[in-house]
Structures are given as C-alpha cells and as structure tokens.
C-alpha cells in the first residue's frame, strides 16, 4: 500500500510540473498582463479625448474594414479640423499593421472615418493615432486582443 502511495505522489509531482510548464508556454504568447483595452481615453498629453469603434460595430479577422475615431477637447467640444495619421502593429512580432489605414473622411462632430484597417493574426495589436489640430498635437494609443 505504501509503495502505491509513493507512486501516486511521484506521479502527482510530475503532473504538477507538467501543468506548470504548460502554463508557462501559454504565457509566452499572451498579451501584456492586464492590457488597457479601453476604446475611449485621454490622449497621451491630455490634449484630446479620443475614442474608437469599428464602423460596422464589429469586424472579422482578416477582412478589410473601417473604424471611426472620435476626437474631442477635454471639455467635450468636438475637434472638427484634425489631421490624423494612423499607425500600429504587433509588438510581439516585430511588425506593423498589414495595411496602411488612412483617415479618409470627416463625418462631423469630431468623428473621422479610418479606412483600410485589417488584423490578419490573432494576438495583441496596437492602433496609434497621431492627431494634430490648432488645439495641439497628441497621440492616442489603443490596445486590442484578437
């Protein structure tokens, strides 16, 4: 009986080590711990409030689609005259976005259509918007996980 228990305990130790190893493996490809996934935030220096949403409400991995970026001043006034440069990528994979999205239209009330967005892989993505207007220049950075 005692020998059976020794066997069971040894096997359990191996199992726990194996399970720990599995968790470590999965950890290696995960996004940063506790990423900020909010889609509405103050820009880096606080010049604007920026929020983003897919124009169609949702999107599918691998399909070209549009987002809407809304830019406001901290007091809530829409920023109507911003110029916007879009950038981003996958920090874990040393590469940028698979496409070169552009702000192609001002939809009014500080809302800008950003066309040509695509996420071709699962994982942690970053979307960066460099926003400049007479009110100042600042950057908004959004995290996404697919």
């Amino acid at each position: 009986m005692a020998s059976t228990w020794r066997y069971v305990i040894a096997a359990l130790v191996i199992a726990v080590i194996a399970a720990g190893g599995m968790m470590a493996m999965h950890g290696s490809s995960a996004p940063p711990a506790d990423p900020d996934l909010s889609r509405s935030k103050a820009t880096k220096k606080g010049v604007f409030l920026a929020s983003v949403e897919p124009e169609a409400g949702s999107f599918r991995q691998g399909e070209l689609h549009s987002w809407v970026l809304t830019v406001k001043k901290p007091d809530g006034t829409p920023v109507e005259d911003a110029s916007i440069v879009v950038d981003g990528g996958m920090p874990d994979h040393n590469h940028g976005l698979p496409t070169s999205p552009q702000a192609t239209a001002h939809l009014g009330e500080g809302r800008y259509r950003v066309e040509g967005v695509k996420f071709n892989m699962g994982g942690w993505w970053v979307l960066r918007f460099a926003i400049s207007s007479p009110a100042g220049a600042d950057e908004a950075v959004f995290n996404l996980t697919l």
Partner: protein
Amino acid sequence: MRSRATFALGLVAALTLGGCGEPDFTEAEKAMIASLSLSALPPLPPDPTNRYADLPAAAAFGATLFFEQRLSRDGNVSCATCHLIDRQFQDDRPLAVGVATTNRRTMPLAGVARSPWFFWDGRKDSLWSQALGPLEDAREHAGNRTAYAHFIGKEFAGRYERIFGPLPDLSGLPKNAGPLGTEAEKAAWNGMSGEQRASIDRVFANLGKAIAAFERSIVHEPTRFDRFADSVAAGREPKGEAAFSDEEIQGLKLFIGKANCVTCHNGPRLTDDHFHNSGVPAVKELPEDRGRETAVAQVAADPFNCLGAFRDGGEEACGELRFMVKSGDTPKRAYKTPSLRGAATRPPYMHSGQIATLEDVVEHYNTAPPSPWGTSEMHPLGLSERERSALIAFLKTLAE
C-alpha cells in the same frame, strides 16, 4: 482510503494524459480548432473586378487556355506545365521551369481565388491580373501581347467573342509586340498607336479574366483534420476516419499553442493571406530577392492593377491596393503565408524551395535564424524532438 487513491489516480490521469484517448481541449482550443476547419469557410465571394468571374462559358474558356501550350513562345508551356492538375496544381520543384528556370517555387492553386494578393510577394492584386504575369515573363510562357491576340483571333475567335464581344481589328498589327518582350517586340509595341495598344491590352486582360474564372473552381478538399475538427466542434468523439492519434493531438495542441503556428497559419485555409519575414535563407545562386518590398512598387505601377483601366466594377473593390503598406520594415523580405493544406505532400518548401523537408521546415521555425534582409518576426520555439515529430504528424493530417 481506496476512494482517495482512486481520486488521486484520476487527477493524475487528467493532468498528464489529457492528450490520450478522448481528446481533451479547453473551450478556447475547441473554438480555435473549429475555426480551422473547411466547414468554417464562407462561400467564395464574388470578384466585382472581373464581371466574367462566375460566367460558366468564361470558366470553360479559361480551362482551355490553362492547358493551352501554344500560349507560349516555344509552344511547349501552358499554365499546367507548372500547375500540375494531379499534383495540387504545383510541380514539386524548388524553382519553377517554363521556357527557362525562374527564381520562385510554383504555388499550389486550391482556394487561390480567396487571396487578396498573388505570387509569393503579392506583386499582383487580382486573380485575373496574376494570370497575365507568367504569359509575358521571359522565363515562363515568354509570349507577347499581339502574338496572343493573333492566336486567339485564329484559333478561338468564336469562343472569345461569345463571352467578351468583338475582337479588335488585328490586321496590320505586328506578329510579335509587347511592352515586356525582347527589344524588337518593345519597339514594335511602341510603333503601334495608343488606341491599338489599348485594344490589345483589353484582349490580354480578358484572357486573364477567363483563366481566373476557371481557377475559381479549384478548391480544397476536406481532410482527416476537418473530420476531426468537425467532431470536436460538435462535441462528438472523433471516431474512424475522424480519429487522431495521441501524437497528432499533441501536434495540433502545439500548432495552436506553444509553437505559435496559428498566428499566421489561421482560418480554414491556414493562411492569413499576408506577408511575413520568417528568416528564410537566401539562395546564393539567385539574384537578390527582397520579396514584398520590391513587389509593392511593381503592383502600384501595374496597368492591370485594381485601380487601372481594365478593372470591372467600382473602385471600392480596390481597398487592398489603396491601403497597402508601401514602406518601412514590414515589407522587407516578407513573403506570403502559404496554406498548409496538402503541404506535407508537396516538398520542397519556401518561396524558392530553400528547405527540402517538412522536418527541416519545423527545425527552421524552432531555431528562428536571423533574416538575410530586414528583421525576422520569428522567435526560437524550444521544441523537443518529440514535439517536432508531433507537429509533423499533425501537419500530415492536413494532407490526407
């Protein structure tokens, strides 16, 4: 005491033998596995840039053209010379051989109509425009535009005109002329009027549209992986032809987990249709090859691209071209992710056939060497020999 021992043994079994017998996947793993099945493939979308894409007569004409060896300089090369119908529409060679040897591996054609970009480097942005490239490449068909138009007028005028309308007046046009041919062919092309060149370009584009209509019918067949995946997705135990061995299950778990294959080889075709620098070595006998970095300028300047005069439908279909990445590090020595369906039975691998076996491909990704140009996206995987074997066992289920 006995029940505690049974519980402990059960716990051990659950923790260590998860891959044995009935597959044991997390809900996230099940969802990922289901997303890779052919059952998850949506219907083939229309191609608004080719209004003949789904016309049966155009597809039939395209099939004729695909196998037509007279569409070449020496009368011996057709599309099917390299895209062999019984070999997944590829040729098993490291470098394709038409009239001469090229710099690239022939790509298989199953599901090709779903890709937004064509060739290993994406230097074409539609299937119909892709079909035109080899026809004029001096190492492939090595033909020229007026020769093709004369050939169609002589051999296939009726079939052509029933689909595309009247052929232009070809009388008096040079026998051999084209902008990419020999010096004499270029000179003859430049001697033609703009109107004549445009009418020949239209015929040439239509040949591509017919070939594309045919190629839209080349699809992936379900594999043992698909049967397994569909069983897992439906909550059934995979049995018989759907069953996986323990090693294949381990390989699948690695594919969607530790080995990170699924980040690029995703979706039912196991490709993200995009371009990556994966540190594939250069072939020293070949000219410098910068992959996507060179191709972005080529596709932007191509008169047969989506923004050119030969596209059907509206410009809204041209998003991939309008918003393509043109500069920076991302395109440097980046090549398209190939589908892994059938890959196990079609060595050699990579864009110039650099890697001879599947074992060596897995070892390449396991060690992740630096790229000869630009930066490799890969990180070393640290897979054991047993894990590498399991991964290969899984990849074989995508080819049977």
